[in-house]
């Protein structure tokens, strides 16, 4: 397959390598030229612009961190809409807001191109190993054409439906449940700590019972017990970015999400206390502060 790839950050790099390794004809582009260096020796074509990476491609994948970035790359001058051949597919793989996905979908349709949304589940190490979970949504024929790419990058495919925004909704809802799980743990740990219970005991009770096997508890709970908030997986600043997308999606669809609202308030409190660069588990510290513990 003739594939283009835009956005070679930590996640994008791993995914692009998998696609190349699966034998596809790959062109890559990143605003930071150094990011493409090692792809040259691996046999990929290095493009120097969005327009160039789109040329002759059947599918172009974007893995960009923010809505504004994918918006520019797709809709800007000499962007994907202007450059992709008719009938080609834009596979948007980041976590984007509903409004952005709708705007991209409409613009590509107008240009006789197809948008599919394929947000991913997993960290860079899983991306490099081709072990991501992926959530594709879009027109059936386009999803079918992309199956070889799904196979190259993922261990598990969750088909979400024919509308790209369905995939965004699922990814955002999953993040919402995670945020709520993080702050619920923060509240639980504050409660027991105020009675003099060792946090490790609550951690053991949780993770050997109702929450056994769930990384959302086994991982974040451990960070709270050890207070190792400097070892950052997903920082609070990324949390607030996603939480804002979730709140916007909830607003568009008219869904009150009171637990998630609480999560947003704790994120803001943490940032207000200068802790935005810490891991999201540090929301437990914000909760502790609110409880008079710190």
């Amino acid at each position, binding site marked *: 397959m003739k594939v283009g790839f835009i956005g070679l950050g930590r996640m994008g790099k791993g995914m692009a390598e998998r696609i190349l390794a699966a034998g596809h004809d790959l062109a890559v582009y990143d605003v930071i030229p150094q990011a493409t260096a090692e792809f040259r020796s691996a046999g990929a074509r290095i493009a120097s612009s969005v327009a160039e990476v789109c040329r002759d491609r059947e599918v172009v994948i974007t893995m960009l961190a923010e809505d504004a970035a994918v918006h520019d790359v797709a809709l800007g001058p000499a962007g994907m809409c202007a450059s992709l051949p008719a009938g080609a597919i834009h596979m948007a793989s980041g976590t984007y807001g509903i409004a952005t996905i709708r705007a991209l979908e409409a613009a590509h349709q107008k240009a006789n191109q197809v948008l599919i949304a394929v947000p991913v589940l997993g960290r860079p190490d899983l991306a490099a190993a081709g072990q991501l979970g992926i*959530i594709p949504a879009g027109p059936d024929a386009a999803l079918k054409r992309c199956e070889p790419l799904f196979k190259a990058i993922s261990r598990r495919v969750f088909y979400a439906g024919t509308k790209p925004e369905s995939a965004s*909704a699922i*990814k955002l809802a999953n993040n919402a449940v995670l945020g709520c799980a993080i702050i619920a743990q923060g*509240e639980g740990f504050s409660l*027991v700590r105020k*009675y*003099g219970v060792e946090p490790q005991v609550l951690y053991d009770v949780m993770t050997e019972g109702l929450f056994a096997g769930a*990384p959302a508890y086994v991982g974040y709970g451990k960070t709270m017990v050890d207070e190792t908030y400097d070892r950052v997986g997903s920082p609070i600043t990324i949390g607030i970015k996603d939480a804002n997308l979730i709140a916007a999606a909830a607003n568009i669809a008219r869904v009150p999400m009171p637990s998630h609202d609480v999560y947003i308030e704790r994120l803001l409190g943490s940032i207000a206390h200068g802790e935005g660069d810490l891991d999201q588990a540090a929301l437990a510290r914000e909760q502790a502060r609110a409880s008079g513990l710190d």
Partner: protein
Amino acid sequence: MRVGFIGLGRMGQAMAGRILGGGHDLVVYNRTAAKAADLAKAGAQLASSIAGACEGREIVITMVTDDAALKQVILSAGGIRESLAAGAIHLTMGTHSVAEIQRLAAVHAESKQILVAAPVLGRPDLAAAGQVGIVAAGPPQAVEKCGPLFQVMGRRTFNAGPKPEHAAVTKLANNFMLGCAIGAMAEGFALVRKYGVVPQVFYEVMTESLFAAPAYKVYGKIMVDEACDMVGFTTLLGLKDFGLIMAAAELARVPLPSGNAFRDRLLSAVAHGNGEKDWAVVANEQARASGLE
């Protein structure tokens, strides 16, 4: 060991059966005597009063539904306080409020008895199989003395500390996180449903990645199947637990905003006549609030 057991509901019967099976000398008492019949057949002695269940016992276990029942069996005339020997242990295994456990620990101490709190984690089927989790707290020597009983009743004992209330608050915090998980899932399902997503897809995304745990698998499935009539734990019991949780939080000055949000959903579910349904029914409440029903 010479053990007494008071409170033979579904959990209590199963736990007492394990103790008997472990070869201990067991006396049982229940207000409704019929519930003791199976245990008597299996070799337990029947007491006709609380005093009878305390006489000559090293440890008396209570497994009663709420704080009021616990106070009754301890403080009433002929209750455990009057009947249990000095130096003997009252092992209370229900889910009770932190404040009540603190008060009752003091009451027992005045009578030279020892209170150990050891609430259990798990349903009656696990209790019958000796597979519940036990969160134990109290004076270390007393907790240690209860060890052989924990061994026959549970798969794992978590030692929560030297004060009985440590166990109470740890159990409540665990229930708290379960409630919050249910409330958060309900919000997630409402969001995806409003975008036309099939709920099963979201269920799979959750439970095959970040949330591959019983809490999400069990309650998420009930929400997908809308099977809240098959009751594991009722909304009213959930509301009772969250009452205990919020009281413990107020006592210790810990704001629990997620807990407040969930408690409000429970209240709405009860207000709409769903108090006796499984507490996963908060998903219906969330759906209603989202204009989905």
